């Protein structure tokens, strides 16, 4: 007798388990099939004691199962208990090998040959069940494993970790504590991993704790002996164990055998689904990672929702209340959330490549605005870097700061704000609302995530951005006709710090407009490179050779990660001929550079200061604290002022940091153009204020990512200061601790305060009237805060 169910759920990961829980709660005749002998194998296989995050925080959990951030063990325990309490019908060791049939009558075959019939099937098998295997001769050696439960289990072994993704790095770092560890990286760098992991692995390699083989691929394996192909031949690694972390791919063969179609042949491709998670086979639903939602909370929500859908209950996604709140004003005018999302998708060509689910997720972070005609959206020189989409109405961009009448009009479907987003600098123009508009403001972080993950968005944005950047940075009066030939073969080029754009003596090969980052210009003087200028984003280099029709007379290098728009010389010259105004401007700038070059040649020490500051990473700063050592009396009143105005913890260390030519760069926040600290902040607690201050808000969870990601070591973790006596009580009677004194006196020392530690950093005293307390408290005027453009400017350096 074959068992019959209303729904069969395949896989007991977060989504399948959640579906099972909901089905049990709703009294459905159901079965949850799990391949192994325990629930949720992927989480089960996490490293022991791993802290599991519950992102995205903003998304509410909708499931019959509990879930909140915590240790792996606690989460598994809670799931196990709830599964039992709800009476979920789980069958373990029940791997499904085939699914046949159609809605109302699916037949599932189990590994043991047993058959199960179900009206509907929910496929929640994820990807982790299908790990990429080590495909080399001898790869079946018993010493090869694809997971690591407890790194402390191994001691004094030689272990090779293959794969330089986050999982591989985390394993290698944990194992390196008591083993000899090698890591094999297919590329010549650690890319596409969390910044904190990248930093940690590079430090471990630098310190000799881990040996890394770059640009290496496994070639063959015999027990205890791994052969690698490396750039200069082969390398042999003797090892006791190999941990291969090569990622996971969709178990395509099995999924296709169920009749499900994939949109393309790419290894990363996932099946296409309806908004109700139904595949092209009616009655066969897919949820979780296989549906493109790898996060635990999303998957659990889908498990719940899919059961409701099967029951014919057309519930809205869990984020519905959030979106309703967001679009409240429009809902009052009789539109539904779905209509609005469809409107955005069809109106905005930029967003058309997104699925409705992706778009919903993206919009959760956005803010909705309804500016009236003429209302200011943002002002030139504001330090915001969000991105705006015009859904309805329009916008007017005041492109010429000297003449507010020169405006560019944008209509529905267009966007703006991308120049500030890319450059990480102040807004280059004021934007007004062009009518009674409906705009969506997307925060920097979600926009960057979108650009990095959806190719079509990146492409569409760059196309528009390039034209605007040329206009903004060259001349607002350039016509489309004048620009067209240049644009036709212009391209965006990327440079790493220290990489050369062009070298002195080379023939002219184009003009470089810097749209992100900054560069240094150096010239050979008496046999050595002398820096003669620092050029920030929004300017161009390479025009000198073009106008003089001569070889390059200087070498230009990226100071930090830099993006330029490269333009062909001949076409650029044509454009100049068509735009006499621009020609005059370029000519003027060239003359300025010639004069500057001569002055700098006579003052090599100024060049040395630029060189020193660039080495300190000042190039990516927007505001930096410098101390004039010839005025500093070492009273530390700056540190005390910082501590006293910021909960007892100083965010700057005056004494630390290098000094050159009387200029001291203390350890303090530089408010970077593209803040490293923002890159990986789970609660998105780090923001940039209108005046440029990068600050951490009260939603900090104390994870420490920002502190690890900051290359300048200016963020640290501190608990709240215990209450202290008043100033006079301390001065007259010695009560409590004095300004800046213990318990939060020195960096790195144990703090006196109890309670959770949160990240603290310089906020440039944005909430205090009068500005930075450190500078205001300097009795001799030695401490100054400056932007690098000012500091690097020649006039100021030569005036010394």
């Amino acid at each position, binding site marked *: 007798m074959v068992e019959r169910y209303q729904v069969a759920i395949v896989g007991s990961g977060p989504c399948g388990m959640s579906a099972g829980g909901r089905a049990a709660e709703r009294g459905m005749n159901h079965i949850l099939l799990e391949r192994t002998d325990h629930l949720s194998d992927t989480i089960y296989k996490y490293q022991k004691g791993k802290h599991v995050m519950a992102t995205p925080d903003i998304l509410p959990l909708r499931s019959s199962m509990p879930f909140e951030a915590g240790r792996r063990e606690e989460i598994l325990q809670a799931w196990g208990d709830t599964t039992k309490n709800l009476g979920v019908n789980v069958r373990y060791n029940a791997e499904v090998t085939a699914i046949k049939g159609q809605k109302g009558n699916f037949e599932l075959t189990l590994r043991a040959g047993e058959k199960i019939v179900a009206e509907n099937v929910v496929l929640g098998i994820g990807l982790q069940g299908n790990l990429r295997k080590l495909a080399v001769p001898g790869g079946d050696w018993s010493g090869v494993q694809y997971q690591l439960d407890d790194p402390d289990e191994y001691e004094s072994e030689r272990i090779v970790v293959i794969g330089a993704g986050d999982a591989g790095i985390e394993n290698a770092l944990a194992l390196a504590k008591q083993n000899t560890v090698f890591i094999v990286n297919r590329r010549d760098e650690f890319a596409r991993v969390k910044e904190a992991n990248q930093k940690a692995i590079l430090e471990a390699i630098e310190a000799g704790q881990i040996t890394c083989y770059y640009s290496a691929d496994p070639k063959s394996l015999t027990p205890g002996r791994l052969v690698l192909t490396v750039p200069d031949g082969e390398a042999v690694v003797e090892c006791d164990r190999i941990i291969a972390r090569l990622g996971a791919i969709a178990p395509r063969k099995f999924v296709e055998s169920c009749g499900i179609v994939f949109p393309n042949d790419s290894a990363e491709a996932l099946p296409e689904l309806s908004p109700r998670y139904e595949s092209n086979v009616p009655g066969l639903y897919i949820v979780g990672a296989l549906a493109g939602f790898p996060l635990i909370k999303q998957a659990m929500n889908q498990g719940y929702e899919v059961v409701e859908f099967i029951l014919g209950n057309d519930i809205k996604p869990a984020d519905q209340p959030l979106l309703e709140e967001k679009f409240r004003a429009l809902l009052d005018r009789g539109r539904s959330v779905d209509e609005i999302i469809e409107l955005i998708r069809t109106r905005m060509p930029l967003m058309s490549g997104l699925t409705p689910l992706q778009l919903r997720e993206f919009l959760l972070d956005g803010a909705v605005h309804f500016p009236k005609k003429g209302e200011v959206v943002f002002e030139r020189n504001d330090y915001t870097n969000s991105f705006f989409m015009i859904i309805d109405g329009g916008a007017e961009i005041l492109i010429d700061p000297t003449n507010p009448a020169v405006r560019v009009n944008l209509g529905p479907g267009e966007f703006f704000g991308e120049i500030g987003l890319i450059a990480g600098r102040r807004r280059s123009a004021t934007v007004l609302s062009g009518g009674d508009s409906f705009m969506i403001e997307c925060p920097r972080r979600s926009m960057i995530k979108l650009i990095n993950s959806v190719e079509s968005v990146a492409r569409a944005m760059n196309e528009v951005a390039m034209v605007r950047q040329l206009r903004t940075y060259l001349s607002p009066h350039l016509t489309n006709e004048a620009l067209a030939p240049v644009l036709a073969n212009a391209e965006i080029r990327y440079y790493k710090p220290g990489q050369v754009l062009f070298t002195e003596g080379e023939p002219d090969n184009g003009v470089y407009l810097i749209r992100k980052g900054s560069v240094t210009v150096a010239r050979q003087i008496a046999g050595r490179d002398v820096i003669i200028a620092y050029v920030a984003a929004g300017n161009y280099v390479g025009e000198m050779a073009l106008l003089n029709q001569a070889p390059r007379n200087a070498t230009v290098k990226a100071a930090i990660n830099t993006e330029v728009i490269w333009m062909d010389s001949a076409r650029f010259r044509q454009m100049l001929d068509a735009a006499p105004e621009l020609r005059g401007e370029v000519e003027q700038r060239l003359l300025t550079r010639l004069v500057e070059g001569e002055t700098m040649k006579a003052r090599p020490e100024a060049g040395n200061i630029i060189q020193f500051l660039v080495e300190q990473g000042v190039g990516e700063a927007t505001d930096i604290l410098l101390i004039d050592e010839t005025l500093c009396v*070492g009273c530390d009143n700056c540190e005390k002022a910082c501590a006293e105005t910021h909960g007892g913890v100083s965010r700057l260390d005056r004494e630390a940091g290098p000094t050159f030519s009387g200029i001291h760069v203390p350890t303090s926040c530089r408010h970077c153009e593209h803040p490293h600290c923002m890159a990986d902040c789970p609660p998105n607690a780090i923001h940039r204020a209108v005046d440029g201050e990068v600050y951490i808000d009260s939603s900090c969870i104390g994870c420490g990512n920002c502190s690890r990601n900051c290359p300048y070591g200016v963020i640290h973790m501190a608990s709240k200061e215990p209450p202290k006596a008043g*100033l006079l009580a301390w001065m007259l009677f010695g009560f409590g601790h004095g300004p800046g004194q213990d318990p939060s006196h020195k960096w790195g020392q144990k703090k006196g305060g109890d309670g959770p530690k949160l990240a603290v950093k310089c906020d440039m005293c944005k909430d205090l009237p009068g500005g930075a307390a450190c500078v205001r408290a300097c009795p001799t005027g030695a401490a100054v805060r400056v932007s690098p453009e*000012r500091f690097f400017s020649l006039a100021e350096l030569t005036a010394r």
Partner: protein
Amino acid sequence: MKLAGVSIHKSIIEYRGFFYLKLAAGLVLLSVAAYWVHQPLAGPNGGTWLGYTLGTIGALLIVWLAWFGIRKRRYGVGRLLLEDWLSGHIYLGVALLIIATLHSGFQFGWNVHTLAYVLMVGVIVSGAFGLLVYLRVPALRTENRQNMSLDDMMALIAGLSKEIYQAASTLDDEVGQLVQEADQRTRIGGGFWRQLSGTDPHCATTRALNKVRARAEQFSGADADAARQLVTLLARKVELLARARRDVRHHALLKVWLYFHVPMTVGLIAALLIHIFVVFLYW
């Protein structure tokens, strides 16, 4: 040099185009003129209307000047920069010397009134010394440090000590003894005068250097090479030690005057209160 509207490389003396100097000078000129014009019968003294006026101005100035100690510890408040306060503190402090002297009518004696005056002069003189130190020492210190911090120097010295032991290890016991003594008995800093002097006439490393040098000519072959290397290393350490001691001296100079300036201020305020009390008691 000017940065973001703020002068750097401009000392506190020139602050805001000598604004506070002008202010103080104006106050002094007014006081002197009044003193000149006012010719009381009993000769100038603190009991005339001008005497009381100057005394009141002086007392208020003392309170304001002493308030600096509180103001510099109150952070993130007020409209003025601490630099304003310090500049005013300096010039008005000097002005106080003249105003208080005029207030006294040059009448001094062995009493609490003159004690208050003497303490005030002590505070102002120590402050003037402090100002000189603040103007002079930071540049000297920067030059002496050569882009190193004291910690860097200490680390270098510790590294050199290891190298010195190594270089001496192949040489005879006498050298070994010298090197060990030098390492163990060398001090940086120390007591009050030692820190301020910035030198150590009994530096064990200098002594070791001289003795090893004297002995070095007796060695030959590989020993001679080792001895030469040892001398080089010792000389390098002596040089670094001298630099570290100078840094300690600079640090001490920047701090030491406060040990006079602040206690004397407290004494001055006490004496001033008695002075005022006594004056009104014997009205």
